[in-house]
């Protein structure tokens, strides 16, 4: 069971269909999903899942970046996590990273800088963000574009973050995360 966490503001009427359902469509080809809004995640949800995917959100939606205390569970849930865009930014802040302005909207190329189970070499991705995260020393950089860090991993935990949207292009990244853990 995969817990897919909806990172969209409740003010966004279409965040669920635009940023969560496409992830679920890819993930459910391999494993059953349970979807919860980030405000609804509780101990029971965390206990019954095997892995967790944090969704992205709309460009104007930065609500989770101001509520990192709600994601303290990332520190000790013990489950593999894939944070996508807002999910990566939020997880990065939880582990001491720093938010920087970085605007990329559309297809962009990123280059893998460290071998990992999710992707390799240089490839094109769909980006939709106004901010990126400079990771703390607790995390390592896995890939970068010409503008900013695009993928990270926690050094001790299986907590991955990708700034690009693999549910739009590069669905295999989500599939490899599911199959790897």
């Amino acid at each position, binding site marked *: 069971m995969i817990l897919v966490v909806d990172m969209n503001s409740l003010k966004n009427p279409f965040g669920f269909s635009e940023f969560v359902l496409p992830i679920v469509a890819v993930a459910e080809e391999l494993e059953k999903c349970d979807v919860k809004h980030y405000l609804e995640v509780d101990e029971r949800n965390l206990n019954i899942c095997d892995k967790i995917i944090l969704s992205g959100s709309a*460009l104007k939606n930065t609500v989770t970046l101001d509520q990192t205390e709600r994601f303290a569970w990332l520190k000790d849930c013990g489950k593999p996590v894939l944070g996508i865009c807002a999910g990566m930014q939020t997880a990065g802040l939880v582990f001491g990273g720093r938010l920087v302005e970085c605007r990329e909207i559309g297809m962009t190329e990123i280059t893998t800088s460290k071998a990992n189970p999710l992707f390799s070499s240089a490839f094109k991705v769909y980006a939709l963000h106004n901010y990126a995260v400079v990771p703390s020393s607790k995390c390592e950089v896995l890939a970068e574009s010409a503008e900013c860090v695009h993928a990270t991993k926690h050094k001790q935990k299986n907590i991955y973050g990708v700034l690009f949207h693999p549910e739009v292009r590069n669905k295999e990244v989500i599939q490899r995360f599911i199959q790897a853990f």
Partner: protein
Amino acid sequence: MRLGVLFSGGKDSTLALHKAAKKGKVVCLITLVSENKESYMFHTPNIGVTGLQAEAMGLPLIKKATKGKPEEELKDLEAAIAQAIKDFEIEGVVTGAVESVYQAARIQQICNRLGIWCFNPLWKRNQKGLLEEIVAEGFNAIVSGVFAYPLDKTWLGKQIDDDMITKLVALSGEYGLSPSGEGGEIETTVLDAPLFKKRIEVLKSKAEAKGNSGVFRIKQARLAENDSCC
């Protein structure tokens, strides 16, 4: 939230509008009329019918002409959206984008510059599911353009129904067509939908086709009482 919908008069933008109206307040439609038949952004047959469609729904329409040159047409779109912000105080734009990263990214960039939300309620939807939803919701959407083998003149002007969906899905398996025309294989025009207070009645039309490329041109149309209404 006050919303403006990018509206071509086809099935996707009309379905996006249908969904937007359920969750927000749609206050205007925005249409770009491109002179460039090759435009990736805006070209569609029967774009001239959007005025009647807007009237049928009782919604104001911001209609802008564009020469359709790649970068200029984006400036024209930005000007139209800026006008919608000024005249109708929209806080967000809704599009019918399903698969096109090219279109979606450019509209996202414009909305980001203008400081408003950009919503894509059909984004990455299963294409067969989209067609089924259009039929289930009671849309009368006709095929107004075909642009790929083995589609031909016989498809033009036909209403999308369950039989057509079955055929399109079969062709997608056999020839790799996108069932709902996401690759530009099919264009559609909506003549009636749940938000239409009146339906579009086509009085004069002409199907023009050469091999596997053709359009169903609506030459004269009017609003007629909607049989299912009231």
